[in-house]
């Protein structure tokens, strides 16, 4: 079984952790995110530390600093995808262009994972009041 270690951090520690990892040549496997029942963000920065994954997780925050200046496109695509799929923002990440969702589908930030399915269907069909 691959080892998985969850480590809670604050939003202020996101950049220093990324800088430390990058300096050690540790790859960023992925950034995962979801929203809790109250719409608060849960963002995990998954680093490949040897055979294990160290998951540095920030809970309860919907605005986080970008790490694109540290992990380049390896962080930019996950950050842009998260911003388009749920109400979480990465300050400093360029969002001038859509990566994933068409411009016409949603207003502002993506809400796919938190919008009820019936409401989404109405949105796509243009039946929303």
């Amino acid at each position, binding site marked *: *079984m*691959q080892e*998985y270690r*969850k480590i809670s951090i604050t939003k202020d520690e996101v950049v220093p952790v990324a800088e430390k990892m990058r300096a050690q040549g540790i*790859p*960023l*496997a*992925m950034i*995962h*995110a*979801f929203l809790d029942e109250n719409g608060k963000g849960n963002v*995990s920065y*998954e680093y*490949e530390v*040897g*055979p*294990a*994954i160290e*998951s540095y997780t920030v809970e309860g925050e919907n605005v986080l600093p970008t790490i694109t200046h540290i*992990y*380049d*496109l*390896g962080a*930019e*695509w*996950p950050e842009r*995808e998260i911003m388009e*799929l749920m109400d979480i923002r990465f300050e400093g990440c360029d969002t001038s*262009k*859509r*990566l*994933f*969702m*068409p411009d016409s589908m949603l207003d502002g930030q993506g809400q*796919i*994972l938190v919008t009820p*399915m019936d409401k*989404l269907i109405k949105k796509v069909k243009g039946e929303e009041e």
Partner: protein
Amino acid sequence: MSYIVPIGPYHPALEEPVHARLYTEGEEIKDAEVFIGYNHRGIEKLAQQKNFIQTLVMVERVCGICSHSHAFAYAMALESIAKMNVPKRGQYIRVITAELERLHSHYLWLGIALHIIGHDSLFMHTWDDREAIMDILEEISGNRVNYGMVTIGGARRDISDETRKNVLEMLDKIEESMNRLTDILLSDKTVALRTQGVGVLTTEDAKRIGAVGPHARASNMAVDVRIDAPYSSYDDFEFKKVVYPTCDVFSRVVIRVLENYESIKIIRQALDMLPKGPINLGTRIPTIPAGEYMVRHEAPRGQLCYKVVTDGGENNKRVSIHVPTFKNAPTVPTMLRGNSIADAGLIIASIDPCFSCMDR
């Protein structure tokens, strides 16, 4: 003269929809951008409303080529949360299916690459060989794709002695024709002219952007989840990471050809050592406690990540799927720069993209 040349989302050189925008100066590509999402089906959203077995069936349909990898990774995430011990025979059957899937995926890509290169006779030979692998997958699972071989806690179908013999015979046949294919691919002038020095992704760029799988190994990065972070029963088998240093499209061809030999090696070992005993822990809907886990699996195109969050209920709280193409597609603009428009289709295809997987 400067042009903006759009490729896709629907284009004859692309097997699946993606949009690339090339900024050119005459025939030379100066810069490029990639846009994705044309195959988005909301699978992560749907997974939040389905139980674990329903999700297992659904995630297998994220992709038609690496379907087993998705089911394998999702099941491993749940088994890790629930601390299940998958029976060894079940693990071996999963690995055998995974390596057969890798073989047919690599053959598929080689065929497509040869078709784009313009070597159609070899493309047809390659896909003819691939049919033998598809036939054996059908014999094992009942299906050419979407095998349904994984259940949570093991494998769904056993491999009989007769099938075992047929797989070994197929491997002998494939290996023989692969030797011929390898000779041609490594010495043919047409292949060399279209691939050598084309679409270069340096090791430094591959590391900076975070390339994975055969694409990374073709840029001289020694990464392979099966060896770096062994899972299931991969540490029972002897095989090596295939790495090639030229960092161009040719390197990506070589890697996939040589990796086929490693897959054959793994399958032979797994069939030889196939343990006796049960193949799974039962097929009823399992009880999964609250928890979260992220697993990595070496899919045919590279590292596949599944992060699953559960709350002790019947459904997933969150399933997050990130496929190798999501990591490799950002390398495309770097590879395109400085090449000619005529090579753009081949360069994009050289990452062995699966946009269906990526968009999920």
